[in-house]
Every structure is written in structure tokens, then in C-alpha cells.
């Protein structure tokens, strides 16, 4: 019996090539899409689950009461907290504090900027990061040892054994020699804790003053604790108040007026860290789960749409199969057998689609990895959930798509079928609404993609107030001679034909998370202001225009430490008519107030998510400059960059030469948005393709139903073009409905999205019209293919059996 069904299904597949193609391709695309999204979502929700002790590991959270009475949570904790937890609470078996910083590493004349992690010795006992070499218990005991990640070993040592070798790492202001004591396996992609170089947490002393290390008020490190397997979390938490009274009592009495609820601790399970968006991640990776939900929702929708498309096609095709069903009933098939046959067929299609879908998923996986920035793989055998979900995907698709045709087709009385008295489904309102929903989704996605593209292009082309493509930024990487480096660069390059100017600044221009903000007071008014330490050349190098007063100049000895240049926005906020000569007070400078000597035209020093903020510019010779800004001429850029590299090597041989163009730095601030635009763009292509297939099926159904009508109309003298437009109009009405649904939703969603940008485009009507035209054009194409075929057919053919 089964063999007979398979034969029928296979022969049907070969005979009805077009239908089979549409069915299989539609389902395969949907399955491929779902498989990729599944990998993505699984990776997101199972972050950090691979640690054997994952359920016993917690991060300590520090909650403080703000002035307005609300509690703010922060993952940063005071350094003495971890050791105190371990000694005072029997529930805490182990603890490891965790911190990361960017530092320069030197080995055999090479130097690179690397991320250096610090952890307490128990780190490898708590977290499941297997060591290729080294003993997890002792590998971090010595404060001069370093553990390297597999890949880093290859970078510095090639194939040679690094154990026992010395490698020089800068900590704070000095270089220290570290002995390689262990090699860690490469870290899985779904770990929110990652490291390249790992040294003892004790090294925090190298760059943090002693007084901060032992106090309970300053938070500088993360604290992880491992609880005893049987430990009760709530029991442990109940001991926190007395712990806080003991260690923080004096601080609370002094600063919070004895309000002991002003400081609290919380334990955050390790597994919850990654998708928690409320706290800044600090030294760990984090992600917004909203993206997972949205993607998962779209994937599910696409899958259901593809499955229901199959249903529509199966019903459309059923006219040719009704006779088979009738005959089978006459020959003794009961309803159950027929249902099984049709479900089996759908599962068969599901299986073929699954194979093709897996193939497609494999083909698109590298591309997908590229734009979700992950390293996902179809691990069929190493992770049982992959295979299980693929198989259940097939059954889901098979059952959803097969059940309606199965029940619909097996229901008929054979006598009706065999005398072809039967009319195939009336005007199925259900499948028509389905097309509306599909197209609404497609139109929504197209509009969103267009608006996002438009906004991102606007951001790229927005005048930032300077020519970013001509300014090279070179970070001095905490070199103790930052200012000296800037001066040497200037002296050596001053007369080069391709270098216009060299200057330095303390803070990066192109940074949304700057902490360089301070209150500026004028009389009774106070404005929170960004501050930049710069040198005399900065405004000239950046090409910024001074609109009142003057630029800093070496002719005025009072400029350093006594004068300040402000931006237009600050002038506006202060409400000054004339800024020059105003005396302002800040924490900068000496006790004397600072005199405003110039006003610079507003320019963007943050991403366009934000309005231009008030800013002041100040020369402080005691402060090292952190960035060298070089303005170059746009001709022969490679050789100019080569020159900069040589100059760097000569003056800072222990530090790697890192450089970028300022406009690139600004683009990096929109990486997330760029990525989501790409994801949406691809998704809309998927959605359109599948909607088209659905439309194709539905028009086939409609035309089958109207074959006789078309035949009669033709006999009565209708033209082919008239018939085609008659049929197409029917579907264009559906597209109109889809637009009515999609437009407001897209407008709302994009309006919300744009609120994230202080500088944004107006949503324009052409974006909506274009999306609708695309949808309509696709509709006409898909429908007319069938309509023309029906209209060209000989009417005698369609009327013969009536």
C-alpha cells in the first residue's frame, strides 16, 4: 500500500513539475529560513549553558538608591566584596572576580594591542574552559603567569610550545614580563565570557591606586560566585543585610543618612546575564532578546505561510485528483486510508523540501553568520536539538500543509466526484485573507527596508562639520608620552606635502559612551557639558570654524589652563548674547574661573542618535593626549599612511600602529542599524518569494474554478486581454487590502525606529508607493501567467464535459 502511495506521489511530482517545484521550493525556502533562525535563537538563549556548573554560578549585582528614590542596578562591585563573600558565607564555595582592559603586548619585537582579562585563581575551577596545557587549580596562582587562548598562541608562537616563555604586557603605565603557564581551548561562540590573555586578578594593583582596592564605595570589578550545590539562594540573600551593615555601615551612615535600604546586593544567575538588557554588560557580551523574538516570529510566519500555500496548491490541483479519490473509494478505500494517503504525500513533500532546505541553509550559513556576527554551524550530530528540530520542522510543515487537503478531499461522496457534479471550494475567504496577510507582511518589510536604507544613507551623507575622510585618527594607547608623541609627529611631518596638520585630543570624537562630562557653572546657571582636552592645533586640523572670538594661539600665554573655547550649543544653553569674556567655573583648571575666548561652530562629536551637546575645549599641559589627529591631503593616501606608520614605529616602538579614518569611526556607531537593515532586506526577499508562490497557487485555484466562466465568456466574445485583466483585478483588490493593513503598521514601526535618532529623515510617501507598486507588479506577473494560459485555452475544451 505504502509503495503504491509513494509511486503516486513520485509520479505526481514528476508529472506536475510546476506545482511540485512551487511546493518544494516554497517549503524549502521557509525551512532553510527557519533552520537559520533556529540556530540563531538557540545560540542566543543557550548562552553560557555549556558550563558544567552553570546552575551554581551567579554574578553579584550591586543596587544603589538614587536621589529620586529609585534603585539602580550595576554589575560592577567593590574589589573586597568577592573575598569577603567567600570567607563569610559557607554557601559560597568559590569566587572569581573578573575584569578586562585593552593593553599593549610585546613579544620578540612585535607589538599588538590586545584585550587582557584578569581573574582570580579559582576561575578555571568554576567555569568550564578546558585547558590544553596547565593545571586549572594552579595556572593563575602566580601573579606573573598568563594563560593564552589557543589561537593567540598561534599568533605569537606559531607551532612552538609557549609554556614557560616570557611575554611582555603593559599594565597601567609599565611593561611587565609574564610567564606563559597554560593554554586554553578556543572559547565557544555562545560564551559571554571571553578572553585572549588571562592574568591573575591581583594585577589590578598595577593600574588601580591602593586606596581604591580596599574600599567598599568604588566599584571596579565583576564578582562571580559558585554556590554549594545544595545551597539555598534565598537563604544566602537573607544574610546580606547584616553583611552590608558590617562592611558598608559607616559609609551608609555618612552618605545615606543611615538608610540601610540604600545599598543592596542581588545574585544574578550566570545564564541570565547574556540577554539582560537592563544592565550594561561590562567586560562580557550581551544581546537584546527582542531581536530573537522578532526573527523567530517572522520565521514562524513564513513557515506557516509556506505551509498554507501548499494547502492552496493542493486544493487547486485536486480537480485532477478527485477522480482518483472517487475511484479509490469505489475500490474500497475508507476515509481514514485517504487521509493517510494525503498526509503521507504532504510529509513526502515535506521531506524533499527538508533536504533542499538543509542544502539552502548550508549555502546561506556563511552569509548569515557574517551579518549576525556569529559562528553558527549545522551540528547535526553533536547537538541532538538540531536534528530533532529539523525533523519536527518537517512534520510540522507536513501536517499543517497536508491536513486540510486530506480532510477536504476525502470528504466527498464518490458518486458526486465521479459525475463531476462537484464544485471546488466556493470563493474561499480564508485563503484570500491569507494572501492579504502575506502581502501585508511583504509590503511592511519592503517599506521598512526602504526607510532604513534612506535613514542610513542620510546619516552617511550628513555634514558632521568636518571632513572625516581626510582625518586619520591614531590612538596613543595609554602611552605615557601621549602629548610628546603628538608633538613629535607634528615636528616630523610639518613640512610633508601630503600632511596638512597634526593635533591631539583627550577624548575620541565618535564615541557615544564618553564619560568626559562635567558641570559648567556660570553665575547661577549650570549645564552638563562634554569636555575635550586639546592642543593649539586641534580646531585648525579638524577644519572647525570659529564664529566668535578666536582660536587658541601660542601667542597668548594665558591660553593653557585659563582660557576655554565653547561650542554654539553651550552658548545657546547659557543664553549668552556675547560669549567672549564670560567667566565660567568647572572642575578644570585652577581655582580661578576660566575665560571664554572663542565660540566654535557646532559639529558632531557623537553619533547622530544624539543632538549636539554642549562642549568645551581646554588646553591642559599636564594631561596626556590620547588621540593623534592627522589631516592629510586626499592624494596618494597609501604612501601617506605608510609615512605615518614609519613615524609611529620610530617614536613608539613598543606600541602597535593603529589607525582609522574619522568617517569610518562614525560609521561604526551605526553597525547595529546596518546589520538589521540587511537582515530585514533579506527577510523581505524571502517573504516576497514565498508570497508570490502563494499567489501563484491561489490564482491557479481561482482560475480552475472559473475555467467554465472563462470558456463561456470567450464564446460570448471576450478578448484574451480582457479576461486577463478581469482575473488580475480580482487579486489587485487583495493587494489593496494588504496595503491598507501594512501602511499604518509600517508607518508606526518606522516612526518608532526613527525616534532613536536625533537627526532623522521624514518618512516619505514614495517609500510606501514604491513598496505597493512592487507588490502589485509581482501580483500581475504571477496571476497573468495563469490567466493567459486559461484565456488562450480552447473554450470547447473547458465546456465539453458540461
Amino acid at each position: 500500500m505504502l509503495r503504491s502511495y509513494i509511486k503516486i506521489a513520485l509520479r505526481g511530482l514528476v508529472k506536475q513539475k510546476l506545482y511540485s517545484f512551487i511546493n518544494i521550493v516554497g517549503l524549502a525556502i521557509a525551512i532553510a529560513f527557519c533552520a537559520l533562525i533556529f540556530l540563531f535563537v538557540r545560540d542566543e538563549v543557550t548562552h553560557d549553558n555549556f558550563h558544567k556548573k552553570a546552575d551554581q554560578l551567579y554574578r553579584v549585582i550591586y543596587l544603589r538608591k538614587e536621589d529620586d528614590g529609585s534603585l539602580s542596578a550595576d554589575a560592577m562591585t567593590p574589589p573586597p566584596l568577592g573575598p569577603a563573600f567567600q570567607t563569610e558565607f559557607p554557601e559560597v564555595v568559590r569566587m572569581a572576580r573578573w575584569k578586562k582592559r585593552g593593553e599593549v603586548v610585546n613579544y620578540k619585537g612585535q607589538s599588538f594591542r590586545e584585550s587582557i582579562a584578569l581573574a582570580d585563581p579559582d576561575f578555571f575551577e568554576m567555569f568550564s574552559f578546558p585547558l590544553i596545557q596547565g593545571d586549572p587549580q594552579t595556572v593563575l596562582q602566580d601573579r606573573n603567569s598568563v594563560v593564552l587562548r589557543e589561537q593567540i598562541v598561534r599568533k605569537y608562537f606559531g607551532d612552538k610550545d609557549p609554556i614557560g616563555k616570557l611575554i611582555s604586557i603593559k599594565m597601567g603605565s609599565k611593561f611587565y614580563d609574564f610567564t606563559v603557564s597554560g593554554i586554553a581551548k578556543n572559547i565557544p561562540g555562545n560564551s559571554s565570557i571571553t578572553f585572549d590573555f588571562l592574568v591573575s586578578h591581583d594585577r589590578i594593583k598595577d593600574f588601580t591606586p591602593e586606596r581604591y582596592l580596599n574600599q567598599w564605595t568604588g566599584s571596579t570589578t565583576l564578582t562571580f560566585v559558585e554556590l554549594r550545590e545544595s545551597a539555598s539562594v534565598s537563604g544566602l540573600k537573607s544574610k546580606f543585610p547584616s553583611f552590608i551593615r558590617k562592611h558598608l555601615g559607616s559609609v551608609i551612615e555618612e552618605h545615606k543618612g543611615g538608610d540601610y535600604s540604600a545599598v543592596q546586593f542581588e545574585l544574578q544567575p550566570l545564564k541570565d546575564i547574556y540577554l539582560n538588557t537592563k544592565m550594561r554588560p561590562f567586560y562580557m557580551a550581551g544581546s537584546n532578546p527582542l531581536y530573537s523574538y522578532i526573527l523567530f516570529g517572522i520565521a514562524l510566519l513564513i513557515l506557516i505561510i509556506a505551509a498554507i500555500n501548499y494547502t492552496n496548491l493542493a486544493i487547486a490541483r485536486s480537480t485532477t485528483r478527485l477522480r482518483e479519490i472517487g475511484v479509490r473509494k469505489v475500490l474500497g478505500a475508507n476515509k481514514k486510508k485517504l487521509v493517510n494517503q494525503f498526509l503521507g504525500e504532504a510529509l513526502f513533500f515535506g521531506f524533499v523540501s527538508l533536504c533542499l532546505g538543509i542544502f539552502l541553509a548550508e549555502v546561506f550559513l556563511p552569509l548569515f553568520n557574517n551579518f549576525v556576527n556569529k559562528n553558527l554551524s549545522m551540528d547535526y550530530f553533536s547537538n541532538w536539538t538540531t536534528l530533532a528540530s529539523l525533523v519536527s520542522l518537517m512534520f510540522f510543515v507536513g501536517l499543517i500543509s497536508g491536513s486540510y487537503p486530506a480532510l477536504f478531499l476525502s470528504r466527498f461522496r464518490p458518486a458526486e466526484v465521479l459525475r463531476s457534479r462537484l464544485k471546488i471550494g466556493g470563493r474561499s475567504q480564508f485563503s484570500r485573507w491569507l494572501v492579504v496577510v502575506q502581502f501585508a507582511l511583504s509590503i511592511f518589510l519592503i517599506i521598512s527596508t526602504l526607510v532604513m536604507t534612506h535613514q542610513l544613507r542620510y546619516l552617511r551623507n550628513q555634514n558632521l562639520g568636518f571632513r572625516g575622510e581626510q582625518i586619520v585618527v591614531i590612538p596613543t594607547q595609554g602611552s605615557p608620552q601621549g602629548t610628546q608623541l603628538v608633538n613629535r609627529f607634528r615636528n616630523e611631518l610639518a613640512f610633508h606635502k601630503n600632511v596638512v596638520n597634526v593635533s591631539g585630543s583627550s577624548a575620541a570624537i565618535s564615541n557615544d559612551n564618553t564619560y568626559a562630562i562635567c558641570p559648567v557653572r556660570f553665575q547661577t546657571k549650570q549645564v552638563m557639558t562634554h569636555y575635550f582636552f586639546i592642543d593649539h592645533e586641534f580646531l585648525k586640523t579638524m577644519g572647525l570654524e570659529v564664529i566668535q572670538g578666536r582660536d587658541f594661539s601660542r601667542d597668548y600665554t594665558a591660553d593653557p589652563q585659563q582660557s576655554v573655547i565653547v561650542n554654539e550649543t553651550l552658548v545657546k544653553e547659557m543664553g549668552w548674547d556675547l560669549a567672549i569674556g564670560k567667566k565660567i567655573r568647572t572642575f578644570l583648571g585652577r581655582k580661578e574661573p576660566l575665560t571664554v575666548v572663542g565660540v566654535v561652530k557646532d559639529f558632531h562629536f557623537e553619533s547622530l542618535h544624539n543632538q549636539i551637546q554642549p562642549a568645551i575645549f581646554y588646553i591642559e599641559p599636564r594631561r596626556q593626549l590620547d588621540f593623534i589627529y592627522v589631516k592629510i591631503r586626499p592624494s596618494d593616501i597609501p604612501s601617506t599612511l605608510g609615512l605615518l606608520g614609519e613615524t609611529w614605529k620610530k617614536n613608539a616602538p613598543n606600541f602597535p600602529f593603529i589607525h582609522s579614518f574619522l568617517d569610518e569611526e562614525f560609521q561604526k556607531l551605526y553597525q547595529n542599524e546596518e546589520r538589521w537593515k540587511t537582515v530585514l532586506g533579506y527577510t523581505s526577499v524571502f517573504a516576497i518569494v514565498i508570497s508570490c508562490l502563494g499567489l501563484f497557487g491561489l490564482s491557479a485555484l481561482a482560475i480552475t474554478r472559473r475555467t467554465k466562466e472563462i470558456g463561456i465568456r470567450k464564446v460570448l466574445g471576450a478578448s484574451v486581454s480582457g479576461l486577463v485583466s478581469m482575473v488580475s483585478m480580482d487579486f489587485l483588490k487583495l493587494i489593496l487590502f494588504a496595503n491598507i493593513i501594512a501602511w499604518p503598521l509600517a508607518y508606526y514601526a518606522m516612526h518608532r525606529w526613527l525616534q532613536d535618532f536625533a537627526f532623522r529623515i521624514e518618512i516619505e510617501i514614495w517609500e510606501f508607493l514604491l513598496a505597493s507598486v512592487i507588490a502589485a507588479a509581482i501580483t500581475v506577473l504571477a496571476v497573468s501567467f495563469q490567466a493567459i494560459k486559461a484565456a488562450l485555452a480552447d473554450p470547447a475544451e473547458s465546456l465539453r464535459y458540461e
Partner: protein
Amino acid sequence: MIKMRDINKYYSTGFVKTFVLRNIDLDVKEGEFLTIMGPSGAGKSTLLHILGMLDTPSNGEYFFYDKPVHRMSERQLSDLHKNHIGFVFQSYHLIDDLTVYENLETPLLYKKVKGSERKGKIADMLDRFHMVAKKNLFPNQLSGGQQQKVAVARAIIIDPRLILADEPTGNLNTKEGKEVMDLLKELNENGTTIIQVTHSEKNAAYGRRIINLLDGWIVDKP
């Protein structure tokens, strides 16, 4: 074998009932060769379909071997006709996607006949109808007469007690038609009950009893 009492069949369209069959009383004995005649639209095919349990009467009683068909579930009905009734249609109704061999096999599969026995029966049938060479062809590769022979073979492969034939020669030429009718006659002589619907006086002559239908009523004279 068959006893029908006061069978009516009508379709309700709006407030009007359109009758297809009215007050049909019919008895058929085992081994009979019955012909149902009548003009188009008289209800011949409907009566045949009701006899074959492909359709249900609107009301009335129908006993098959004294069992009340009108009270049976779908499963019982399907058991009855897969074991006892064979059908032959005017337009053959072979399954297009199956070969001659597979078409013959299908009713046996539904009857759950074992593999070896199935092969034997199909081989007998092919042999008897001189179709061995054509067993791997699809229906559309055969002439009308050949297709109808396959349809008859398929109908009798389950050794039915009753064969229902709906204008079995309607789409055939004279020679093919005669062959099929001779076949039916031979089956009848071996004890199979046959009920046929036909327009043709010549075919009707094969039968031993004729009933005439007119506008849904059984009438004495056409």
C-alpha cells in the same frame, strides 16, 4: 440479495425539492442480469450509485443480503463494497498515475490481500484478458476498449457477488462493446449478479430482466 423499499432521492434547492428517485421498490435475486433503462435524467445512474452504496437515499430502506444498508456506518459500507461489489463505468475511471498492473492491484491492497496471492490473482487476470504485454502501460497508452477491459478486470479481481455497470459500452465502438458485453454475460453465467444501466436495446438484450425508469419512477413501459 437486494431488497429496496420506498427509496426516494431528492436535492433541496432553496424551498424546492427536486426529486431524482421516487418510491422505488426493487428486488434482485442472486445470479440475475438486470438492465435499468430510461431516458437521460430519469435517475438511472443515481439508482445504480445507491445500489452500489456510493450514494445514500434521502429516505427508504435498502437491504443487502438482509443487512440494512441505510443504517450502516461509512466503515461498514466500505467493507461491504470492497468485498462484494465491483464497478464498471462508462468512462472507465482508471487511476491515471498507475499502470495497468497497479490499477488491478489497488482493490486487492484495500482488501489487504497478501503479496504472493495478489501477484497470482493479477497474473490470472492479465492472462484471462490477454493483457500480459500491456501490464506496465499507463491507461492513456491504451485504447478505450482496452481500458474498459482493464476496468472490468479490476472490478472482478476481488470476486464480487455483484457487478454494477454504468453504460459500460458508452464510449466504445461496436466491436469493443460486444467484447465487453460478452464478458459480462460470461461472468453472469458463472454466477455473478449483474446490474447494468444502458440506453442501448442491443445491450439490454443481454439481460434477463429490464426495469424502466421515467422521471424517477419505475414504469411498466418506456
